């Protein structure tokens, strides 16, 4: 099962196994990783699952949909490597992925 490493804003790391097909958001929520709210449950409707993808992984993740792109536009503390974690599907290729959570989701 792919391993995903979540790094909290304060630097605390959580490495967890996430089943293929799940989203990076689900991997965090189901493993009690703090810092990702995901109020809408992954419907790309709330923009409260914002993460920063580790720069060495940004090219390996499929691109953003128009909807994700525009939802992100309004997230706080946006960076070029910002993503909505509910829109990143976990695959075998993403084994070892590192994402960081922002200071706040609101």
């Amino acid at each position, binding site marked *: 099962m792919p391993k995903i490493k979540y790094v909290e804003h304060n630097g605390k790391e959580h490495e967890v196994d996430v089943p293929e097909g*799940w989203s990076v958001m*689900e991997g965090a*929520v*189901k*493993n*009690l990783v703090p810092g990702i709210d995901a*109020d*809408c*449950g992954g*419907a*790309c*409707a*709330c*923009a409260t699952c914002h993460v920063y993808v580790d720069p060495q992984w940004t090219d390996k993740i499929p691109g953003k949909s*128009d*909807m994700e792109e*525009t*939802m992100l*536009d*309004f997230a706080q503390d946006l960076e070029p490597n910002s993503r909505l974690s509910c829109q990143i599907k976990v695959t075998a290729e993403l084994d070892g992925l590192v994402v960081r959570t922002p200071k706040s989701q609101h």
Partner: protein
Amino acid sequence: MIIGAGQAGAQAVASLRSGGFTGTLTMVGDEPYLPYQRPPLSKAYLQGTLERERLFLKPEAFYADAACEMLLNVSATAIDRTARTVALSDGRSLSYDKLLLATGTRVRPIPVPGADLPGIHYLRSIADVDLLRAAFQPGRRIAIVGGGYIGLEVAAVAAKHGLDVSVFEALDRVMARAVSPVMSDFYRGVHTAAGVKLHLRTGVERFEGAGRLEAVRAGGESYPADLALVGIGVIPNAELAAAAGLAVENGIVVDRHAATSDPSIFAAGDCTSHPGREGRNIRLECVQNAIDQAKFAALAMLGKPAVYSEVPWFWSDQYDLKLQMAGLARPGDTIVQRGDPAARKFAVFHLREGKVAAVEAVNAAPEYLVGRKLIGEGTRIDPARLADTTIAMKNIV
């Protein structure tokens, strides 16, 4: 103690513990499951693209870590406010210092002859969808009663799945309670193009069949059907509160702090009737309200009451369209349309006294997000600018 194991109940557990509550915590739920998300039930879960395991809001470890005792498959049958105890269906009685009612809603049964024939489904719980899914076979004829969110989301999944889909709606447009006529008209076109037979102004009179559903009688005609899905709204689960003498009027009446008339009892989520942002009492059926009101209920239970006045937001997924809405429209609002429905990307704003009161956006996240912000801030807006798609939403004010 929390009665109700849904979105609001789960949020309350999180908020009570993160807010510093160190006492004992118990949750009572009448379904066999830990709190789960209901929105995907009529979408990805019905479609089979989301497994049951993924519906759960929090893993079991969350409740264990929060030292919250989960009493599932049990319902609360009575509240004794003097003794501060709750009687449970398994014969037990539990005492509380503070009680949160997060009892949600149940489906409104359809009051017509034949309504109990096998083959007629409702959609509210995992169990409901498991039953419906078993009957969801390509080629079968499904009659959907009610052209609201549930009916139309199921229609979209059914059409994609190869079922022969008919929708019966008593009113003259779909989603009439939730969206503007422009939006209703757009979705009517989308469903019709997908092969769904939409019967507007057509109330269902009875279900027909010998031993199981064979046809739906509507508008004086008989439509053959192998299965039916009834989605005609919900009823708040407020009987427990009413029997305990709490104020109930279209839901459990709470104030801006999510407190009932009893200082030890609070309520949150779909089951509450609460003061809306404009003063009048409203009852919302949405994830946003369940989450936010539960947060405020937790604050009040911890002795730190704050005023709940968040902008409500909603969404609906049908086919490849994401409908996102915020605020509450009212008859008499000025309607401003932005973008062209034919492009399958547009928004409808409702203006009241020069300010945005509500927004409905199809595949148009900026319109939705900026609209939601404008509603919250009560900013005055020029309708002509709002309608002008050459001005980006970011620069609209």
